[in-house]
């Protein structure tokens, strides 16, 4: 009986991994061979919507000036633009920095969420409060460490010309990619995730994900959907699925690039990954059945939605699969076929972590990276690291659900020198 259960688990895992292998292979082939769908970013339109840019900030003195300088120079009609940097319970000089920009630019209108203000700390709460003040029809969100280009607000705004679009996502490029081995690996991963994965999902009319930054959404739509869940750790994933279930689309603008900082230490990466997995899993538990029941999605959309919701579950399943194979080994079951098959499927799907190696390779080729692609085999080391920390994040999410525990928001460390 025990052997049957263990074998059945391996068979189930193999099917899951093969499903993801097929999905990512289809994405790669579509990006390389299929018809590419472009967001509207090459349309010139003098009739741009009023836009609010929200930049949540908690202790962001190292990076606040950079993003505010760049947004102040954005190529967008001043009379239609407002920027709301949100000082969210900062204990450093973030508040003072924001105030200096308020004095210089009339369209920068800070929101200070500091004592005696007693609202919950965290990005979703900060966004909700800023939404109540926003005058724009479209809201763009940037995390504080991002470095937006001059034209990106236009690219985001124009994408909403499609009336079915509820949210738009741009592309994220690490600015510190060359810092060390980890940042190079993360650059490869981001490249695969955006240049191939997101673009293919948009081409195939599946589900590009709104990533919570370098993107935007319709303000009134967001308010009608109840805003952001203040307890969410992955408010971006939640928004994506809220929109989809309500019949709205998410557009992906590959041309709209913005620079970000990726974690430079393994500890910071572990914390980031655990937070993403924990938040994503909470969304999965909440939206799995509503997704399947939604009358507004096609079967294909629902299938992709399920695979998207489950993307972070694969790693912990794989970790259990390794333990399962070892148990079967000691129970006398020939290890070859099951483990070899799991290894192969795992190799296809997860060698390269959340974007398989062939997606990353195709993306690097399209991006014009040559030397960095040679680091791909070293993703083997990331493989176990990601599996372990994804498993931790999943466990935390399941505990959150089981004991009705609230998660606390903790931001990723910044590495740039302060510009005061």
């Amino acid at each position, binding site marked *: 009986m025990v052997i049957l259960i263990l074998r059945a688990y391996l068979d189930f895992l193999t099917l899951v991994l093969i499903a993801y292998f097929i999905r990512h292979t289809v994405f790669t082939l579509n990006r390389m061979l299929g018809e590419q769908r472009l967001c509207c970013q090459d349309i010139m339109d003098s009739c741009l919507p009023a836009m609010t840019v929200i930049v949540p900030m908690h202790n962001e003195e190292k990076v606040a000036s950079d993003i505010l300088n760049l947004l102040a120079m954005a190529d967008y009609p001043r009379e239609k633009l407002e920027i709301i940097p949100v000082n969210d319970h900062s204990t450093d000089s973030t508040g003072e920095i924001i105030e200096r920009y308020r004095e210089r630019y009339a369209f920068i209108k800070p929101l200070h969420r500091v004592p005696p203000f007693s609202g919950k700390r965290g990005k979703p709460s900060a966004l909700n409060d800023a939404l109540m003040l926003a005058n724009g029809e479209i809201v763009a969100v940037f995390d504080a460490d991002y470095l937006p280009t001059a034209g990106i607000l236009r690219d985001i705004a124009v994408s909403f010309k499609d009336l079915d679009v509820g949210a738009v996502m741009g592309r994220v490029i690490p600015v510190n990619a060359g810092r060390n081995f980890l940042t190079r690996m993360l650059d490869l991963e981001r490249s695969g995730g955006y240049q191939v994965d997101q673009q293919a999902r948009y081409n195939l009319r599946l589900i590009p994900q709104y990533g919570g930054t370098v993107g935007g959404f319709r303000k009134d739509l967001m308010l009608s959907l109840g805003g952001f869940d203040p307890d969410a750790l992955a408010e971006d994933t939640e928004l994506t699925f809220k929109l989809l279930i309500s019949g709205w689309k998410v557009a992906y603008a590959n041309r709209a690039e913005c620079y970000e900082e990726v974690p430079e230490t393994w500890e910071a990466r572990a914390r980031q990954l655990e937070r993403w997995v924990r938040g994503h899993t909470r969304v999965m538990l909440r939206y799995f059945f509503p997704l399947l029941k939604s009358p507004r999605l096609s079967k294909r959309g629902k299938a992709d939605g399920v695979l998207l919701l489950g993307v972070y579950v694969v790693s912990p399943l794989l970790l259990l699969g390794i333990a399962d194979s070892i148990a079967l080994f000691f129970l006398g079951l020939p290890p070859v076929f099951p483990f*070899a098959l799991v290894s192969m499927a795992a190799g296809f799907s997860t060698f390269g972590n959340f974007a398989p190696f062939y997606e990353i390779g195709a993306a690097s080729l399209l991006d014009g990276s040559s030397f960095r692609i040679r680091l791909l085999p070293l993703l083997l080391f990331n493989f176990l690291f990601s599996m372990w920390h994804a498993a931790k994040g999943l466990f935390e999410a399941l505990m959150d659900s089981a004991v009705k525990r609230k998660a606390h928001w903790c931001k990723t460390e910044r590495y740039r020198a302060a510009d005061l």
Partner: protein
Amino acid sequence: MKGAIFYHRAYRKPFFSTRAFLLRLFILVAPLEAALRILYPRLVRLMSLAVKLAFSCSGPFRGDAPGVGDVFWLAGRYPSRLFSLLLFLLSLLSAPFFFKSKIAKPITLWLLLISAINLVSAAFFLLAPSSFPWTAQDFSEYYIQAELCIWALIPFLMGLVLAPMPSGLWSQWGTVLATLLYSIIFGTVRFMVFIYVLSGISMAFMPVLFFMFGPLVDFVYIVAAYSLHISAIAANTRADPKAWRWLY
């Protein structure tokens, strides 16, 4: 529309059609798979012969695994209770050492997993040594079977990931063939190392050899071959607008 739309990587696409991709995939995969199907008993025999010679053994092969052919094996060295106890303690005590060490976290996790597997194996040999279900002959046969799976996989996987790439058919074919040859040679050398460990050191290391240094490691060179090929194409194509179809 804009008066001028500049070349941007978001608009790049190779000069390739689905039909050309499928044809290329067939050409990359079919001949090598057919050759493997015909030649695999000889390859297995050659592999076993190489290992037999490396261990300076004379006489005929010791095994004839069904469906696989001549497989070389040597009698395994079962661990003594003392060895099992030492392995158990070493694996157990290494965990806090690895946690506290300054080694990069990903490498630490790999070492911890290796220790965990050795810990389980040592515990098994301490508690139920006569119940260990595998012999050295079993291992050799299963190893060869795993190698055959990998060899069969390489043309298919490499073909699938290389066929849509904008490089010449011959260079792609060469990459797949080189990867396959490397796999055969690497597999043979690894086989020698595994047999040495099992017959000369201890059978307690059998699980860790298979699970941590077996099929999973094969992906390293498969991905390495792929990445070298792609980096060569990228170096040639990135600065040349004519190398790409642009979406407008």
